[in-house]
């Protein structure tokens, strides 16, 4: 019995059980749920979208081939991220470099770009589309220039919205190490931001964990 119906109500772990029991639909559903997440997660590590797609596909190939090693009670998401992290590590070793070369278009070096629209108003609508593209390209470059371990922690914390405990478990380090790497990454990015444009952070600037802050 492997048919999966009403897949929105079925957890990832239940889908894995169905898949292990022979349900191809369950595997397809898992791929559908995580294709975007995995691709973007890897993309933030390797900076090349086509490579990121390949590695993300490799991750699901690994899931398919090693389905019997998945233990019930474990988080499928954590297992999948762990596979992806290992694939990224091997990719970097193959490339023998860090950070990897960035395939984004060269952004204009002359002049600055104005981030004040975003940072003062906290609203992306304040940016012209061209400025936003510049900002995104400079951001990607800045993140790719972070040391790999800091980049991993920063992207997993900010974009994948993982807690420090989960990141620590996936990367095999302590939550304290996660905290210091995140802090170091933020400092480095702040330094790059200072060089790019004067700014003020407004009250609407997005930050995580803000609800009910006493500060």
């Amino acid at each position: 019995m492997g048919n999966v119906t009403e897949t929105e109500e079925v957890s990832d772990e239940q889908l894995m059980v169905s898949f292990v029991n022979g349900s191809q639909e369950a595997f397809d559903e898992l791929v559908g749920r995580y294709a975007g997440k995995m691709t973007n997660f890897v993309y933030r590590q390797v900076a090349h979208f086509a490579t990121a797609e390949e590695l993300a596909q490799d991750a699901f190939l690994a899931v398919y081939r090693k389905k019997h090693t998945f233990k019930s009670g474990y988080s499928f998401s954590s297992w999948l991220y762990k596979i992806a992290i290992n694939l990224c590590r091997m990719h970097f070793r193959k490339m023998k470099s860090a950070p990897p070369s960035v395939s984004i278009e060269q952004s204009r070096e002359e002049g600055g770009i104005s981030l004040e629209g975003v940072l003062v108003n906290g609203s992306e609508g304040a940016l012209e589309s061209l400025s936003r593209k510049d900002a995104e390209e400079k951001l990607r470059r800045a993140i790719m220039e972070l040391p790999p371990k800091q980049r991993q922690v920063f992207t997993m914390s900010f974009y994948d919205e993982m807690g420090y405990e989960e990141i620590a478990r996936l990367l095999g380090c302590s939550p304290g190490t996660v905290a210091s790497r995140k802090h170091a990454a933020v400092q480095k990015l702040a330094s790059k931001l200072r060089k790019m444009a004067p700014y003020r952070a407004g009250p609407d600037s997005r930050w995580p964990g803000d609800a009910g802050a006493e500060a």
Partner: protein
Amino acid sequence: MCRPCKHEVRKMKCKKAQKLLSAFLDNELSEEIRRCVGEHLEHCEQCSRLVNEAKGVFAWAGTWRAREASPFFLQRVRARIREAERHPAEAVPIWLPRLRRVLAGVAAACLIFFGGYLTHMGLFTGKDMSETVRPAEPAGKGVAAVTAPSSAGDARRLVAGIQRMKMVFGTQLSEAAYEQLNEAQRSLAQRGGPGTEQDLAVVQELQRAEDLVRREDYAEARTVLDGIEVAYRDHPLAPYARMTKVFAMPEEGSGGVLRDLYASLLRETVGDPKEYYTQLTTFPEQLREYGWQKIVKSAEQLNPANVLNYIEKRIAGGSETLLR
């Protein structure tokens, strides 16, 4: 006003507060410390400014939009699966073709040993491959030609290739790699010539030593490994023989402890790479008991390659002890 708290963070210095800022913004602090950091920020303009800078970074980071996965993503995954099922020996990970080009024939001999070693130490997941070595058959397509290494550069690339192979710990890639190893072994068995015979001899001796380690006959294993170092001193696999001695150290003393710890870890996590990485979290604590601060530092980063790289460097550098 700041209520007294056991951390006395009314007097929290900026240096301490600044280290906690990211965790503060991520809501990762305990309630008590979070409150105290918040109270510090109320009175510290410098740290408040750093908080605003961090918020600016987060706003900037938010400009990187997630991209949609290809609409053909699932089809491509299915295609990879079909290919892997049709041609398991050819469905290699993206790094393996590059590795093959670099390592060539003697590297293949090295991989045979390493694959067998990993198999016996239980690092290949899935079925136990140790009993499935096939008798020599005609070599299949794509098998690397066997050539003897000709330079120190080849040897270094070989050792680097071994280290990269170590990163395969616990992944499903090992099955495809194992098929490659068998193909290379068949090719080696087929060819004749002095260079190839020596390669095969070294590999067979290494496999014998590895079997002895697995059976915990450490003294005999050390004898075999010493013999390799003497007879094949200049062979590229000689450094690997030295590294293997880590797992055949005398029972007495700290070398034996390291061996026991690591072997125990491998036995406990046979066939379970996830558990292997999880169990490795206890490694630093156990090592710390024996005062191995340097290894502890590497192990705390919980990258198995860091630990092994450190050990390899010590061995390759001629050091007989790992304690310093």
